């Protein structure tokens, strides 16, 4: 049984990552529902959930067959690629170089694209809901597996993602509009920081590094990535000015 200090980073990373991805998936499903009705949108979303469940049922058992050391190395590098991508975008957003993510705008864009289809519009809307749920869901599954599989923390990580999914469904069902008041950009920065910290930790373990404090090195690495993000988002506008 893992203790709270070990489980908290995995649970919070999975919750935050899951929440952000579920909000984005909900926006797409809502757009499909607003254009072609809830039946079409929920059919597509349901098919997406089923495809996701099939993917987890197929790939999940494979993870248990990979030796832990190899798993940590492979998952670590994949997490680094995944986490640094989130962190890079979040820093560029915070520094004002790319637009902040806005669910209301995303909803309007998606709805407009779906309205443009005449014939077969139901199929296209259903497919959009399917794709949205499947793709955002794949990210959630990857986050859960990556932060949980390396150290036997799949339980807390799954719990975090499940709580996030249920919260988004509850909020979405009661509001029936895009969840644009969610501080998505800040949450994305936090997810980028957490995933990069997990990625560095597992990659290091794969390289044979014995981190000081063992699992407590994960919050310490997260603090380092967060400090870097804060510094970089402040310095970047000036750096771009002077080196342009």
């Amino acid at each position, binding site marked *: 049984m893992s203790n709270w200090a070990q489980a908290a980073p995995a649970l919070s990373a999975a919750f935050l990552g899951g929440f952000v991805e579920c909000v984005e998936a909900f926006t797409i499903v809502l757009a499909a529902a607003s254009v072609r009705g809830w039946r079409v949108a929920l059919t597509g979303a349901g098919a997406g959930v089923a495809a996701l469940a099939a993917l987890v049922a197929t790939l999940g058992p494979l993870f248990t067959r990979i030796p832990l050391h190899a798993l940590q*190395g492979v998952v*670590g*590098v*994949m997490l*680094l*690629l*995944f986490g*640094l*991508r989130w*962190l*890079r*975008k979040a*820093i*560029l957003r915070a*520094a004002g*170089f*790319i637009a902040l993510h806005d669910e209301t705008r995303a909803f309007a864009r998606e709805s407009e694209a779906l309205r443009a289809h005449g014939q077969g519009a139901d199929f296209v809307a259903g*497919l959009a809901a399917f*794709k949205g749920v*499947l*793709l955002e869901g*794949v*990210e959630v599954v*990857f986050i859960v597996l990556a932060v949980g599989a390396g150290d036997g923390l799949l339980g807390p990580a799954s719990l975090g993602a499940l709580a996030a999914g249920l919260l988004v469904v509850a909020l979405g069902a009661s509001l029936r509009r895009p969840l644009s008041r969610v501080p998505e950009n800040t949450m994305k920065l936090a997810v980028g920081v957490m995933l*990069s910290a997990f990625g*560095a930790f597992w*990659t*290091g373990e*794969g*390289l*044979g*590094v*014995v*981190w000081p404090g063992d699992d407590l090195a994960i919050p310490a*690495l997260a603090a*380092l990535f967060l400090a*870097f993000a804060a510094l*970089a988002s402040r310095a*970047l*506008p000036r*750096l*771009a*000015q002077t*080196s*342009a």
Partner: protein
Amino acid sequence: MSAIAAIVREIWGLFVDDGSLAAGCLALTGALAAARYADLLSPPLAGLALVAGLLALLAENLRRSARRLKRRR
């Protein structure tokens, strides 16, 4: 078929957004793994080099991306 291709493209995009950052990250971890395998680097130094290398890669990528995005405006 195009829907499947789009899904595959998007899954690839989960890991690779800016190719140079992904390539740099893979090169760094590959070089460190080779150095560890050949016993050229102690575990603590490998950890230090990994973290410092990642921050350096990210800093350089951000600087380049910011310049490119500023020029585009």
